[in-house]
């Protein structure tokens, strides 16, 4: 086969310019951050940030945790560069944890640096630590030095499949925290009571990049159900009849939400219908004359769950309208979709506290398992 000299020359020049060469870094030369933690300075001084990263295990070492404190996130990386022999990469970053004090001060710098970096996925999870992020990461690293990150990352990623806790991606966090009149919600983590890792203690509410409040687990459940975030989990119930315990048990349900918005003069009314579908997990009848396969009793169970949850939700709505004064259940977009031009200016001055919110809970137990 004849190859003209000119074409061969061009090919040679092109091959020398294969631009991937500039970006070639051996994987051994990377420090691969899996979880990044952000705190205020350990000294308590204002205006700085402590950046902790939980990094992937190398061939000969375990996963490890390192912290650098500086004025900005970028400067912490510069300090790191003086110490560490390898290149720090965020390509495999899976979660960001924010310390309590920094969350109160504001997390704009953390958000900015991560959304600006093309190699960081906006789908990574964000959580707040009830304490310092550095201490939490050290704790999980101690528990399982070989695979400290995997359990932690999995906890944040999959928790909505088994508990009424939000999974908050970096993008969702940014979107909700900076949207007018709404708030972002992240899981709130703490070192587990049994000191064997990390547990979700509830949730943290953010607006304009600053944490405003904590919610406990029950309030978080109400928030998740009202906001329509897709979750599944167990809910216990107790039925009393004539002041006496008749039945107690639990159901496993998945949630769904429907919102209708209407208006009468200046009063805007939201009708939220929360639908929970699932199965009966357990129940122990005190009075054995009644069986669960009696449909009336199944209705009683459904009503008991719905009643309890509705009370929790009404409490949360009171908290939201009277104290937080922010839409934490993401209903404002429904009003905006109808009266955007008129409502947008009101969002800065207060909108959610003046609306009427009605809640209806519909529980549907679809089966009772293998027992009647």
């Amino acid at each position, binding site marked *: 086969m004849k190859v003209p000299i000119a074409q061969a020359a061009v090919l040679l020049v*092109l091959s020398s310019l*294969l631009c991937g060469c*500039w*970006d070639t870094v051996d994987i051994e030369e990377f420090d691969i951050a899996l979880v990044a933690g952000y705190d205020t300075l350990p000294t308590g001084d204002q205006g700085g940030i402590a950046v902790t990263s939980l990094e992937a295990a190398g061939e000969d070492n375990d996963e490890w945790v390192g912290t650098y404190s500086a004025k900005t996130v970028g400067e912490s990386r510069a300090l790191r560069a003086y110490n560490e022999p390898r290149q720090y990469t965020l390509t495999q970053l899976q979660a960001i944890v924010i310390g309590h004090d920094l969350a109160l001060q504001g997390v704009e710098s953390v958000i900015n640096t991560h959304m600006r970096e*093309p190699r960081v996925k906006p*789908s990574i999870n964000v959580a707040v630590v009830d304490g310092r992020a550095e201490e939490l990461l050290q704790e999980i690293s101690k528990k399982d030095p070989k695979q400290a990150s995997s359990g932690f990352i999995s906890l944040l990623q999959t928790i909505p499949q088994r508990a009424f806790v939000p999974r908050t991606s970096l993008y969702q966090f*940014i979107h909700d925290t900076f949207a007018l009149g709404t708030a972002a919600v992240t899981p709130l983590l703490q070192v587990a009571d049994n000191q064997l890792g990390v547990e979700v203690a509830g949730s943290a509410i953010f607006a304009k990049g600053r944490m405003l409040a904590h919610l406990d687990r029950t309030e978080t459940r109400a928030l998740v159900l009202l906001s329509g975030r897709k979750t599944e989990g167990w809910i216990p119930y107790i039925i009393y009849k004539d002041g006496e315990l008749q039945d107690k048990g639990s159901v496993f349900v998945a949630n769904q939400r429907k919102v209708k918005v209407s208006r009468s003069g200046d009063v805007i009314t939201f009708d939220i219908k929360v639908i929970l579908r699932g199965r009966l997990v357990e129940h122990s009848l005190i009075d054995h004359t009644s069986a669960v396969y009696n449909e009336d009793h199944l209705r009683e169970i459904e009503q008991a769950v719905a009643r309890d949850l509705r009370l929790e939700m009404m409490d949360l709505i009171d908290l939201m309208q009277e104290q937080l004064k922010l839409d934490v259940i993401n209903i404002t977009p429904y009003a905006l979709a109808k009266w955007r031009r008129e409502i947008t200016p009101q969002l800065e001055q207060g909108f959610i506290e003046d609306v009427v919110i009605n809640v209806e809970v519909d529980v549907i137990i679809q089966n009772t398992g293998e027992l009647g």
Partner: protein
Amino acid sequence: MLVLIFVIYIVLFQGIVIRLFADITCVFMLPTTPIWAVSLVSTFSVVFAVCKGGKVIGRINEFFFYLLVVDLLIIFVPVNQGTYLNLLPLGEIDLNGLIKGSLKTAYAYAGAEILFITYAMVQQRREILKAALIGQGITVSIYLLVVVVCLMVFGTGLKFITWPLLTVLKLPYVYALGRLEIIFLLLWVGLGLRPAMNLGMAACYTAVRNFNLDFNRWYKWVVLGMGTVLYVLSLQADNLLQVFTWADYAGYAFLAVSLGYPLLYLLAALLRGEKSK
């Protein structure tokens, strides 16, 4: 003179296309590779394809058209991250903003003016209007789809994002693959340079014909010359914001050329008392 202006416009436009391609490649794929290297390799590809002539360019377009279907499919994946509520109420759309936005996005539709050149090459001219309308319709539909998905997902936050399509593809958590945008970026290497190839062929063909040069002898030299010019042009911007400003101007120029150029010819024909065919 008009033809020369048209050629200059195309070469300038190509320079912007190559620079944008190089910038996106550097930001998302090759962050430590210098712009000049990516631009050079891109220019080589454009020059090579244009040298091969209209048939090869046509086949490249045909091939990439089918790859676009893949892009179309993946854009649906992030839809569940957004809400239709961000699109409502339709009745409150700000017409002034819509017109300003349309002017800004005119750049994205540039390239249709290649029909001024390719029209002369088409043998079955009865079909050209239908084909052009279908082509433009597909382009409009794809852009509309991208805009609707991005609006559903980002809402008013869209204005803060430099490359919404790439960012929106990064949002879903994708099991196994990890990053959805990688599919788009794989195709990007081909799709991003395609407009420069089409326009490059149009510019070189026009230049050769306009100066009555021997096609077989001069076409490749003209292509090489054009390649050199557009490579130099692609390196002129200091930063991405400057490139975006130039792209805005290119969009206005596109409107002027695509509407003004045929109108001028029509006017000239009317003045000369001839009916345009």
